[in-house]
């Protein structure tokens, strides 16, 4: 399982992801799946600045991620796959064999969302979407930094 972590975090590449998770898991390749960023060189330049020299970063859109997923999972490189939106992760993982676990990191306040954990805000529709994801075999839990303790989907409402 060389994809060591599937994470949803709307801050995308930032300290908790890079220093908290990627360093702790020995990640060498951060895959950022986001249709907007994949089409925007100036945003990629900004995110690249936050990646330490010992790691590389790939910017892909949802389609490319679906195509390359088996290659990353069977490869030898330790990969962290990151999306900013719940919907993107759902689309990346739709129908994949041997469904993985998904980690909810920071999903922050936006109009319509209510607080589920200090770092997880969800609309009812988003919660339902995560429940459907879990029903498809993907284990979903929230944990902001390694060792903080994973919180299951049931505890989120």
């Amino acid at each position, binding site marked *: 399982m060389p994809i060591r972590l599937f994470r949803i975090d*709307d*801050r*995308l*590449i*930032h*300290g908790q992801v*890079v220093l908290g998770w990627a360093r702790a898991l020995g990640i060498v390749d951060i895959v950022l799946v986001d249709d*907007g*960023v994949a089409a*925007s060189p*100036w*945003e990629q*330049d*900004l*995110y690249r*600045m*936050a990646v330490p020299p010992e790691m590389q970063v790939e910017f892909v859109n949802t389609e490319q991620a679906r195509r390359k997923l088996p290659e990353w999972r069977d490869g030898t490189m330790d990969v962290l796959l990151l999306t*900013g939106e719940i919907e993107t992760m759902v689309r990346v993982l739709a129908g994949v064999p041997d469904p993985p676990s998904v980690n909810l990191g920071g999903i*922050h*306040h*936006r109009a319509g969302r209510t*607080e589920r954990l*200090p*770092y997880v*805000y969800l609309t009812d529709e988003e919660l339902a979407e995560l429940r459907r994801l879990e029903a498809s075999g993907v284990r979903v839990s929230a944990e902001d930094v390694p060792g903080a303790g994973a919180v299951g989907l049931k505890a989120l409402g």
Partner: protein
Amino acid sequence: MTGEGRALLRLMVIQGAWSYERMIGVGMGFAAQPLLHDLEAATPERHREATARSSEFFNCHPYLAGLALGASVRAEHDGVAGAQIQRLRTALCSPLGALGDQVFWAGLVPILMSLALAAIALGGGGWVLAAVVVGFNLFRAAVTRWALRTGLESGMQVGRAVSASWLPRAAAKVAVPAGLTAGLAIPLTAAWLLAPGLGGDLLIASASAGVAGVLLRFGGARLTSLRVALLFAVLILLWTRFAP
């Protein structure tokens, strides 16, 4: 005072309305107000949208927030589409957080603290602490001003301006002097603390370090290093005040 001056002052208290919901977003909105003021008369609708956008969730290193503030205010004045400005804000969180953490929290702060400890150990008095606090805050104010100016000048091109600036170079280089000064300060400070007598004091110091280690290892999540340090500071104060 100009709008820029008031925005600068407000940037100094950007964490004053920190919350999990918006992190420094409300502080950003507060600091943006003086810079958005002139939109109010010209394009009230744009002003309303810009005010709401500027207070949305935002998080980065507080000293570098001026880069994001200046850039997004400039983009609002340039009439850039709202969705683009939101993407800019989101994308700036990560490099401004990572660069700020490296330069300040893991660089400048340990360097200054180590130099202060070493200077005190070598015979400097309490003025050393005052000099460090004043010097650090003068530098912080200068960085805040540079950040706001650079943001206002570059707008949507702020990423390019940051890459070309001193920040990434400082972030790449600051770890070595931070390690060096800490390595210098620790033995100097230990020797200074233990100098009065290498008998009983050494025993107490070793025992305290042992107890602190055990507390941190087995004390659970509530016993953070800060709390253990404060506990020992209180014990030392009580000891120096009431010891026979």
